[in-house]
């Protein structure tokens, strides 16, 4: 079984991103970039499926300019077998990413496609589901457990109040939630090996996709700042403030 796993290059999750003073965009100068945390979980899950003998090949794909090859190499160092970069400008929106991934699916015919549930830059939480619709595949989103069983996959999903399990016909889409697994660290020998793994580059035209804008960013602004409050000396003062000043408890 071939597994396709999508990875995105995003700002490192520790970075506090700010709007540029002129409001034209966010300021990403000299900011550390990394693989999106949920995508890292997706890679780990795919590699575990391969280690368990369920998957025969793991292909890591990223959509973006040449810089995203760095994140593909990270995925290769974690255990993916080969990589695909779809060379488009950065910041392509989810629907277009989904169309490009559909193009890759048509070429590679994977049985399972694993993506992160959301990227921590745009916070859209859309691509996996859109890909499901475009490829007419079922989806197990926000997955905390994935069990492949013949031509089906059971996915346990994080839902309000608990967990839900669905059974999907393969080929299928899975998007990862936090508790699916704990990604490994890449070892130095594996990082070296990753440099030699195959990495193909496609253009949007190769995949028959026209890149266009459906939603454009007009401007960005910082959120309304919260006024810093006060420190209270003890529990008595806290209870008093909540009762008599904030009036949120009685």
């Amino acid at each position, binding site marked *: 079984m071939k597994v396709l796993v999508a990875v995105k290059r995003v*700002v490192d*999750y520790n970075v*506090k*991103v*700010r709007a540029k003073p002129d409001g034209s965009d966010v300021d990403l100068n000299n900011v550390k970039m990394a693989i999106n945390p*949920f995508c890292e979980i997706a890679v780990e899950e795919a590699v575990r499926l391969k280690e368990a003998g369920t998957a025969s090949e793991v292909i890591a794909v990223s959509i973006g300019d040449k810089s995203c090859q760095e994140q593909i190499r990270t995925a290769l160092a974690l255990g993916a077998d080969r990589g695909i970069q779809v060379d488009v400008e950065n910041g392509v*929106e*989810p*629907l277009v990413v*989904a169309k490009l991934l559909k193009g890759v699916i048509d070429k590679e015919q994977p049985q399972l496609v694993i993506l992160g549930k*959301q990227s*921590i*830059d745009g*916070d859209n*939480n*859309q691509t*996996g*589901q*859109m890909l*499901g*619709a475009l490829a*007419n*595949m079922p*989806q197990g*989103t*926000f997955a*905390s457990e994935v069990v492949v069983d013949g031509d089906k996959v059971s996915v346990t999903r994080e*839902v*309000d*109040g*608990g967990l*839900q*399990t*669905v*059974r999907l016909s393969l080929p*299928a889409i899975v998007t990862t939630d*936090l*508790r699916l697994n704990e990604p490994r660290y890449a070892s130095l020998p594996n990082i070296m090996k990753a440099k030699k793994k195959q990495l193909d580059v496609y253009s949007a035209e190769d995949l028959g996709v026209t890149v266009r804008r*459906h*939603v*454009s*960013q*007009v401007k*960005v*602004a*910082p*959120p309304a700042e*919260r006024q*810093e*409050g*006060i*420190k*209270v000396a*003890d*529990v*008595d003062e*806290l*209870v008093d403030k909540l009762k008599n000043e*904030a009036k*949120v408890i009685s």
Partner: protein
Amino acid sequence: MSTLVIAEHDNNSLKASTLNTVAAAQALGGDIDILVAGANCDAAAAAAAAVPGIGKVLLADNAAYEHQLAENVSLLIAEAAANYDNILAPATVSCKNIMPRVAALLDVGQISDIIAVDSADTFQRPIYAGNVIATVQSADAKKVITVRTTAYDGVPAEGGSAAIEALDSVHDAGLSTFVGEEVAESDRPELTSADVVISGGRGMQNGENFKLLEGIADKLNAAIGASRAAVDAGFVPNDMQVGQTGKIVAPDLYIAVGISGAIQHLAGMKDSKVIVAINKDEDAPIFQVADYGLVADLFEALPELESKI
């Protein structure tokens, strides 16, 4: 202009998030209808019909929709969308699962998690864990939008009497089946709609210690949440997570206990009306957003707080 609001419900009753979404639809203006898709969901449809200001309720009652499987419900919504300019749904776990599928079927972009309507095609939404508010414009004639429910006060639940119209078409994609669910039974209010939320972080040290929050939660009728660090450490389940990739809450009172205040957590709670932080590290970033900060050992402060409220 016309808007179809997708109801969030449990087949018996309407979730409060539906009322928040109707409020966002009102901000867009024009006619508003509600779609209730489920199985044996007459009661939910009746509740939707009682919402004031609704034109009509579309009721799709079929076993294929019972568990809100995205493969089936998205086909239904995409078909119903033909008659509307906007399709709005709350940005809840269930609708986040379904709506991007609808958008792709319609070949339009989705605008996720809006917090304000600037005009018929321009919206505000948080990005980068809420550190930045983006104003975005849609070029699509038909708009698929999810609404951050904490940004809108819900409309009243009673007072209207809209007509209920049954939709007969059945969409079963045949790709997925529901196997089961494990839902924790709780008498506490839901995290996203509670007036008071008390959350624990890594400082709680283990899952057992979350019991210290329960007595306070009982007294304040509060929901209990957690930071991502506490979930990552395995103290509590992920559905308690408040933050960028968990639940977004904005209660009247939010009490953060043993939570340092990472960006990801603040993204989920900083719109709360009053924030209390209890942490023994006086330099913890949580104090920068707290209205009332108490520098104390939580193992001493929590029992004392419970006894004094």
